[in-house]
């Protein structure tokens, strides 16, 4: 896919404050088309706020955001047609059936009626939701609900997909499925996913953006970041990496993390030691 001249997402000196608290402080980055980018940072780093500003749901205090060349502040309607968004905690109506919900969302996203049914079948297949298509969303398990959210985000085939913590609360096998699903979008869509756990996103992302207190503190490919942080920590073992200076030690590794090779269909639980190597805070 030849890259068009405008990047998919351009964020320039973005600032957002809530009642005296700065959530996003002068954030700038850009994402090329077809790139999968991971947003990494501890809780309260400004990930969700940034994502909400990208979708146009929240207005920024200053700075500009452009999605495929359209400004979020001045052309919200154009931007809404370019994005698929799955918010934090994946809110879904409790009393609708999966296929009904996707149909409703598809109509709102202006998919022509003719194309909608085949497209719903396609995303249900893609997200492995065929078995539950007639179930009521409120009765689904967390993993299925998460996949309904992802199916909804990719439904209209938007050029940009924004997902806030798509793997939160999933078991290792489901994380693998979600990861493969996102990897399958590579090249076709620009994807931004957020997480506070590096291994969850490093397998899928081309680039990881680490933010803390509303600022980009590091960015690069997962391998580069790992090398940099591990290298620094071996040179000076006692101080923590400045990247995660505010994060409490050991707060990020969850025991449900899958092992890094994603070829295994049923991953066994990783040993605590392997988790320690997976996360920055333990590595430092």
């Amino acid at each position: 896919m030849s890259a068009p001249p405008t990047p998919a997402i351009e964020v320039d000196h973005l600032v957002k404050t809530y009642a005296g608290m700065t959530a996003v402080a002068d954030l700038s980055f850009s994402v090329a088309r077809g790139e999968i980018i991971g947003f990494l940072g501890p809780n309260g780093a400004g990930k969700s706020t940034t994502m909400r500003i990208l979708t146009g749901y929240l207005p920024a205090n200053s700075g500009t955001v452009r999605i495929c060349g359209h400004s979020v502040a001045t052309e919200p309607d154009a931007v809404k047609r370019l994005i698929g968004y799955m918010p934090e905690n994946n809110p879904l109506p409790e009393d609708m059936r999966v296929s009904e919900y996707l149909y409703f969302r598809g109509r709102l996203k202006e998919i022509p009626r003719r194309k909608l049914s085949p497209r719903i079948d396609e995303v249900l297949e893609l997200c492995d939701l065929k078995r539950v298509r007639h179930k009521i969303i409120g009765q689904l398990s967390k993993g299925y609900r998460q996949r309904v959210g992802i199916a909804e985000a990719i439904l209209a085939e938007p050029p940009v997909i924004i997902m806030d913590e798509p793997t939160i609360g999933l078991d290792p096998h489901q994380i693998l499925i979600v990861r493969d699903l996102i990897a399958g979008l590579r090249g076709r869509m620009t994807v931004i996913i957020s997480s506070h756990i590096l291994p969850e996103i490093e397998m899928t992302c081309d680039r990881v953006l680490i933010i803390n207190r509303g600022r980009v503190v590091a960015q690069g490919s997962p391998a580069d970041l790992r090398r940099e942080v591990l290298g620094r920590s071996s040179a000076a073992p006692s101080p923590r990496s400045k990247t995660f200076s505010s994060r409490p030690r050991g707060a990020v590794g969850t025991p449900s993390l899958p092992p890094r090779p994603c070829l295994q269909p049923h991953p066994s639980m990783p040993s605590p030691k392997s988790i320690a190597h997976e996360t920055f805070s333990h590595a430092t």
Partner: protein
Amino acid sequence: MKHFLTLLSHELRMLLVSPSTYIAGTAFLFFMGFIFTGILENYTKAPQDVSPAHVFFQLFWLPVFFMVPLLTMKCLAEERRLGTIETLLTTPVTTTEVVLGKYTAAYALYLSLWAATGGFFYILKRFSSDPRLIDSGPLIGGYVFIALSGLLFVAIGVFASSLSRNQAVAGILCFVMLAGLIVGVRWLGEASFLNRDMLAPAKAAVDYAQIFTHYEDFTRGVIDARHVLFYLSGTALALIFSILSVEAKQIHA
């Protein structure tokens, strides 16, 4: 406005598949039937000056106080509590379409509940030997009044729902606003301190907003453009405030 019909059909569909709609409808008809029977009983005891329809619709405030908050408290508060308003507003729909869709669905339910009470009058006409009991004037006037005032009442309910993410708070707010509008204004109209010359404009405004007076006019067959304007402008105002409220909550999230 191209998403309005999508949103409206979605809302109506959700109302139709929800058991609470049918429970509310049954309870409403039960309650109204109880009132209607009570009115008819009075007619069996002594001859009355006015037709049963007149008395029946005069008690409109009773169901309005309870039904309107119950019908509308959920519409925007629930979306905000679940967070689905975020996914809704990040699609190419406008806040206006969302609010109008919810409002129209709630109003349609309100109207259909009242329309179901038409059955009472049908039964009365079918089984009573006295044709004087059915006076078509107050009957039609009453239903026109219900339809027109319902526009404003439901809009107030939607506005209350936009103010809070808690359904109970929204419901109580709606109840208080409706009580203020219906009973509060009536009480103000009877208050003597407004009779001073200085407060004459305020007195005129209060008299204009007397919903019970509007009702009397409607049942007498007087459809005054000022009354129609009162309800239409009030509805527009309440809906505009609802839209602004939803948008303001977004900005100050």
